[in-house]
């Protein structure tokens, strides 16, 4: 059984402009001790999906299920969820100041966190544990720095302190939402190394949310590629990088400067992501897809490619490479019109 299994999650908000469908039928699962990478451009619904699972979205219409060790998180009371957050599921966000309180010492916050979930831990013992946690995440002189305020830490240290918070109660799952996006590559490497090591040591499962395919390549065992609130493709890491089926996955990879050999020009995806209030009919990627053909006016379900569950893609394209190329050539033939639409569109 998977540690976390999310089935057909739907989340929508009502806004002055209409109903915004942030997550539209998302399913994925995370196995114990494994890392699931969720990748997608901004606005694709990564944060809303995971925050909803943890009961942190407000004013939304939610449906579906999120089974954590078999119990549906979406049906739990606020009180039950509060216990799960921290003790069972730790969370790390992009901005460490959103979970580290600026007015309290880092150590005090760790101690409170530990004692809030287990009253039997004495003050001294909790402090020792706090120092140990800071040492684990590579904070220099942890016995002294434990008394610092968050602003006395550098950006990378704050991010590592937040990892210490998330790990304090030895949770089974850590959800990290763009934990390194605001950091330099050097510090990002430190943070990812710390997370990997803690995972090895404690067998923690991780959901790593990022828009950076480089981070995914580094840490993810399995990958969900999201677009416009749904999974476009899922599979293990090497499937997603080397045997992807979905044109959106292909487009993301091709637009990277580091991908493949040096080329004269980059290959961007044309256009921009759709509005989640007025989604185009059919496949949400259709307005930008170089393969789009007649079938795509209907929204494709998440098909199994190969063996069930191993690799899935929400796309009508045949898996046969030659047939697929033919579709693309036919589409290119009609491209003149498509390009015209692209440049005039705002």
């Amino acid at each position, binding site marked *: 059984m998977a540690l976390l299994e999310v089935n057909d999650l739907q989340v929508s908000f009502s806004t002055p402009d209409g109903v915004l469908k942030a997550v539209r039928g998302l399913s994925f699962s995370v196995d114990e001790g494994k890392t699931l990478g969720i990748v997608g451009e901004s606005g694709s619904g990564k944060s809303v999906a995971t925050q909803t699972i943890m009961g942190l979205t407000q004013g939304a219409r939610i449906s579906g299920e999120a089974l954590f060790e078999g119990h549906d998180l979406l049906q739990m009371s606020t009180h039950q969820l509060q216990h799960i957050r921290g003790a069972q599921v730790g969370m790390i966000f992009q901005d460490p100041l959103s979970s580290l309180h600026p007015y309290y010492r880092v150590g005090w916050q760790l101690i409170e966190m530990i004692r809030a979930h287990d009253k039997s831990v004495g003050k001294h013992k909790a402090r020792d544990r706090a120092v140990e946690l800071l040492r684990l995440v590579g904070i220099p002189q942890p016995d002294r720095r434990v008394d610092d305020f968050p602003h006395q830490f550098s950006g990378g*240290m704050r991010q590592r302190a937040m990892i210490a918070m998330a790990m304090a109660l030895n949770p089974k799952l850590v959800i990290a939402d763009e934990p390194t996006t605001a950091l330099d590559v050097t510090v990002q490497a430190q943070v990812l190394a710390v997370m990997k090591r803690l995972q090895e040591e404690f067998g923690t499962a991780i959901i790593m949310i990022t828009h950076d395919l480089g981070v995914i390549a580094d840490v993810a065992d399995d990958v969900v590629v999201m677009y416009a609130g749904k999974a476009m493709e899922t599979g293990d890491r090497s499937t997603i990088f080397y045997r992807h089926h979905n044109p959106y996955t292909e487009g993301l990879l091709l637009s990277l400067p580091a991908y493949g050999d040096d080329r004269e020009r980059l290959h*961007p995806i044309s256009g921009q992501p759709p509005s989640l209030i007025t989604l185009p009919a059919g496949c949400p990627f259709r307005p930008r897809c170089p393969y789009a053909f007649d079938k795509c006016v209907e929204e494709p379900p998440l098909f199994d490619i190969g063996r069930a569950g191993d690799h899935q893609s929400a796309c009508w394209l045949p898996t046969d490479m030659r047939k697929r190329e033919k579709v693309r050539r036919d589409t290119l033939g009609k491209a003149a019109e498509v390009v015209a639409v692209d440049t005039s569109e705002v």
Partner: protein
Amino acid sequence: MSVDGAAQSDGEVLLRVTDVKKHFPVQSAAFFRRSHDFVHAVDGVSLELRRGETLGLVGETGCGKSTLARCIMRLYDITDGTVEFEGRDITKLSTRSMRPIRRDMQMIFQDPYGSLNPRRRVGSIIGDPFAIHGLADGKSRKSKVQEVMELVGLNPEHYNRFPAEFSGGQRQRIGVARALALRPKLIVCDEPVSALDVSIQAQIINLLSDLQEELDLTYIFIAHDLSVVRHVSDRVAVMYLGKVAELGEVESVYGHARHPYTSALLSAVPLPDPERAKERERIILVGDVPSPVAPPSGCRFHPRCPKAKDLCVHEDPALVPRLDDPPGHVAACHFPVADGENIADSTPEIGIEERIVEEGLVGNV
């Protein structure tokens, strides 16, 4: 942005920066400020920029990239050193004498949201440079603005729209259009694509490279993404704590990094290719960049450098060609990294008090 490596190395020098320093007084909460405390944001940088080339500028946050850019643009008064543009020393020019030169140097910023006034129509935003320089008004300004809008791939009919009606990528196009309005010679791009999603980022990079070819532009391109910098630049300068650590042709620097900092930086770049990522040896630097108020003695990198020896603590290394490098590839390091050398295997040979040590980070990562 000649990606094929055809750097115009013999092009004429457009910009020459010589030993430029910019020190900011430290703002202190104390009653009497100690006047001798300064942030050494840029601390002696020399560079040349040739017409038509792109110079990439990389380095960790706070190393002085934006400050250097602002010194070059003369948006800051320079503490020391000189900036020459087309052979003319502009370091001390008055605002008035700077004005005609400003037309030739423009800047594009990172934040396509923050840098545009939400209450003004894009036509008028893009037309700003004309207004500032008292050029083209009325109908002729509008047609000139629409011309640049077209050039950067914006629909000229959207002249009267507000920034909020545009996506992130399009707002960055507005920033590019504004910078291009007066057909400058030099454009300093400060993290122009950092806030954009990869698919949109690639659109803007292609746009900048097309424009360079079409309009014979010279770029300084600041970015924290080293793959982007490699793609767009002919030459690259790696900065550390206000100084240039390494400088040279992109392929030479990326292929034969001599400065341990460059090596570490390159090895930390996440590769979007799991097989290559697995094969690669990562060098994980400990700590963060030290405070630029009191930079470390000798080589500024010594507290974090895996190769540091005594000499490094006492003597600032010169920025000169190292090993067999061509004259254009220079590195400020006493013990340059040889081809094929793995600095992850090195241990510093300096006292522990000279180093940054983070137990949790060394070993089994």
